[in-house]
C-alpha cells in the first residue's frame, strides 16, 4: 500500500516536534515529557525496523530499550520530586 517510508517519515516529523519541545521547553518537566515521548516513539520505531530488516530477533532489542527507558524516566521523575 503506502509503503514503510511514509511511516518512517511521519515518525521522523513527530520526533522532530518532540525535539523542539526538548530544546525549548521552559521547565525541566517539559523536557522530561519530551524525552518520555521520544523514547516511546523510538520503541515503536525499533519494532518497525525489525520488520524492515525482516529479523524477528530485533524485537527483543526494542523491549530492552523500553525497559531501560522506563528505568531512566522513573529515575528522573523521582529526582524531580526530590525523593532520592
Amino acid at each position, binding site marked *: 500500500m503506502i509503503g514503510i517510508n511514509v511511516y518512517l517519515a511521519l515518525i521522523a516529523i513527530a520526533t522532530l516536534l518532540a525535539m523542539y519541545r526538548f530544546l525549548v521547553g521552559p521547565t525541566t518537566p517539559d523536557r522530561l515529557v519530551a524525552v518520555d515521548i521520544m523514547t516511546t516513539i523510538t520503541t515503536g520505531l525499533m519494532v518497525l525496523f525489525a520488520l524492515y530488516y525482516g529479523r524477528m*530477533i*530485533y524485537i*527483543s532489542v526494542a523491549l*530492552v530499550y523500553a*525497559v531501560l527507558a*522506563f*528505568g531512566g524516566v522513573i*529515575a528522573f521523575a523521582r529526582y524531580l520530586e*526530590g*525523593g532520592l
Partner: protein
Amino acid sequence: MVSVLKRSLAIITLLIIGYWLAQGLAGVPFGQDRMLVGKYYLENVKAQTGAVNAVTAIVVNYRGFDTLGEVTVLFIASTGVGALLWRRKKKRTAKTEGSVVLRTGSELLFPFILMFGTYIFIHGHLTPGGGFPGGATIATAFLILYMAFVDYEIPHRLFEPLEGLAGMGYVLVGLIGLAIGSYFLFDWIWQTWHWGAANLGRLFSGGFIPVIYTLIGLKVGTELSGIVDSMLTEEVRE
C-alpha cells in the same frame, strides 16, 4: 555574554572534532570486500563454535580474552565506585517514598524484568544481546525497586559472593579449556564434546557461549546493582 562566548567556543570545538573524525572515516572503504578476517569468521563460525550468531561467537569465543578484560574493567569500575563512596555504616536515606502506583508497579514488574534479563543472556548465541545488556536489564530491575521504596536494599550477603564466584567461574572455564585443549578459553564444550551439535540454533547449543554469558550476566547484574547501591546509600549519622 560570557556564556554565549563559551557556548560558541564549545560549538566550534565540537565542529572541529567532528570534521576531524569525518575525515578519518572518509578514508574507510565501504561496500568493498576487503574484510578477510570477517569472511573467515562468517564461513567457519558454525563449524568452529556451534553458535548461529556470528557476533556473539566472535565476542565470546574468538575474542574471549578481550571480553574477560572488559569484565575486569567493569569490576575495577565497580570497586572504584565502592571505594570512593565507602562508609563504615550505610543506610538508605531517601527522603520520600514513591506513590502507591509506583511501588506496586515496580513490585509487579520486578519478576518480569528479571525473567527478561535472563532471557537476554541465555539466548546470547541466538539473538542480539548477551551478558552485558542482560546484566544491565537485571540491574534495572533492582534500580526501579530502589527508586520506589525508601528502605529497599539489595541482599548484599548474597550478591557480593555471587559477583566473585561469577568472575572466578569465567576464569575457571578458561582454565579448563587450557587443561583440555591447547590454549586459554579453549571451547571445550563444543570442540571436545560436540555438545549440542544435533540441535544447532536451539537453546542448548553454542558450546560454552551460554555458560560464559550466564556468568557475565550474573556478574554485570550484581556489579551494576552494587554501583546503584553505593550511589544511593549514604552515611548514617548517629
